[in-house]
């Protein structure tokens, strides 16, 4: 009897899990990082054509993710650009479809709620589903759409890249070093001409006395870190931690599965504990490099534990 009850319970739980899965399938979401690349690709195309336009990228609900108004673009294009993008997102088709319908006599399409029936908005599609859209306004209707198309092509290659990256993670790791190489070249180009930063030893010592960030810019952060006790498990989605131990010892756990993780900021996850992972004892002179998306936990430290951290940011 008890055994039957148990197996019924098991079946019920399994069925509920299945039902929950059916009720909550997952969807692809456009990130800000991808949206910016899409807008940038469209801006490159616009600049090539010497076109002054507004470029808007929205999510699948038609809400704005990124907007760029190129210099000297008429201001009215802001609303029109967002409107075209929203139309393509929420109606899941190019906004030109409605412009054509109206021209061909279906004037009633003007009454569609939330639609800007003007050519220049194109949906962004991943795995057959609309995950967002791009809208361009400011030039001729055809040119607006052509510029939007450059954004869509960038989106397609990002989506294809994500898929390729998935298969790389599954097996080959060789591409990582190629990507790292490309990124290094990118950052050389990006930082070329930037000012030199100098911090004298007193400034550095003062920062280590309290445990403070030394520099935080969009490309990287440099921290003078001081710990007096163990901390939370941390995961940075966009930062590599390059750690150099200056004083004290620590027990560092890396990898494993987070227990009760919480997102505390964009790209920043914290957890009180981790299951599994690799444990290391760190001491003065050691260097550890923790890649993005890797759980790491200073579980126990001596008071004080001082370490210098450089954090390249990968957007």
């Amino acid at each position, binding site marked *: 009897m008890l055994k039957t009850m148990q197996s019924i319970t098991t079946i019920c739980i399994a069925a509920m899990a299945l039902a929950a899965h059916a009720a909550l399938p997952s969807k692809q979401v456009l990130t*800000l990082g991808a949206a910016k690349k899409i807008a940038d690709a469209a801006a490159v195309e616009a600049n090539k054509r010497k076109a002054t336009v507004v470029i808007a990228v929205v999510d699948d609900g038609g809400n704005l*993710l990124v907007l760029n108004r190129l210099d000297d673009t008429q201001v009215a294009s802001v609303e029109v650009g967002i409107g075209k993008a929203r139309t393509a997102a929420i109606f899941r088709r190019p906004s030109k479809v409605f412009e054509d319908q109206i021209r061909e006599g279906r004037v009633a399409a003007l009454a569609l709620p939330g639609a800007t029936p003007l050519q220049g908005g194109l949906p962004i599609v991943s795995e057959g589903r609309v995950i967002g859209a791009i809208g361009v306004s400011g030039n001729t209707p055809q040119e607006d759409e052509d510029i939007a198309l450059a954004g869509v092509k960038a989106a397609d290659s990002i989506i294809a890249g994500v898929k390729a990256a998935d298969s790389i993670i599954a097996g080959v790791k060789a591409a990582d070093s190629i990507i790292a190489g490309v990124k290094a070249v990118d950052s050389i180009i990006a930082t070329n001409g930037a000012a030199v930063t100098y911090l004298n030893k007193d400034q550095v010592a003062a920062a280590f006395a309290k445990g403070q960030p030394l520099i935080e810019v969009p490309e990287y952060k440099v921290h003078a870190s001081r710990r007096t006790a163990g901390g939370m498990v941390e995961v940075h989605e966009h930062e590599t931690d390059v750690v150099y131990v200056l004083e004290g010892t620590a027990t560092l756990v890396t990898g494993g599965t987070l227990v009760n993780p919480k997102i505390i900021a964009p790209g920043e996850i914290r957890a009180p504990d981790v299951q599994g992972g690799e444990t290391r004892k760190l001491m003065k002179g050691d260097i550890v490099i923790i890649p993005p998306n890797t759980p790491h936990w200073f579980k126990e430290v001596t008071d004080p534990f001082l370490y210098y951290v450089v954090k390249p940011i990968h957007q």
Partner: protein
Amino acid sequence: MRHILFVTASCFAVALAHGADAIAPKPVLTLEGAKQLISAAASEARRLSAPGGAIAVVDDGGHMLAAERWDNTFAASAAISLGKARTSALFRKPTKLFEDIVNKGRTAMAALPESLFTPLQGGVPIEVDGKVVGAVGVSGAASAQQDEDIAVAAIAAWKAMK
């Protein structure tokens, strides 16, 4: 007749003199500047461990130059950040001022049209050489105060960059 001509000529002279005063140069915020402000705001949001955020940068007419909504930030924040920035640019004041005015009893001010007025803390004007050239609006951080802190810090960091 000569008299009328003289008067007409004087009028022209006055108009011309006026014209020289009426058209004056003013600094204009570019897309590049707007992007730098957004980047500075993102750094500040990371430093404050903000749970999310949307930022809009508008010109002196309240028209958007650039905007970003960070991952996992609620969708409405994009429109709210624009409203805050626009209000701040058009009234040339931080929006906290208007939130305070409405909260302290001048509720009627909330009746101003939404195209003009979002009386919520988090919009801060950008002043260059004593002139408002635009504004920054932030929404979606931990609180209205943090929204404003991010906008203020972004403008300060951006001015330090120049």
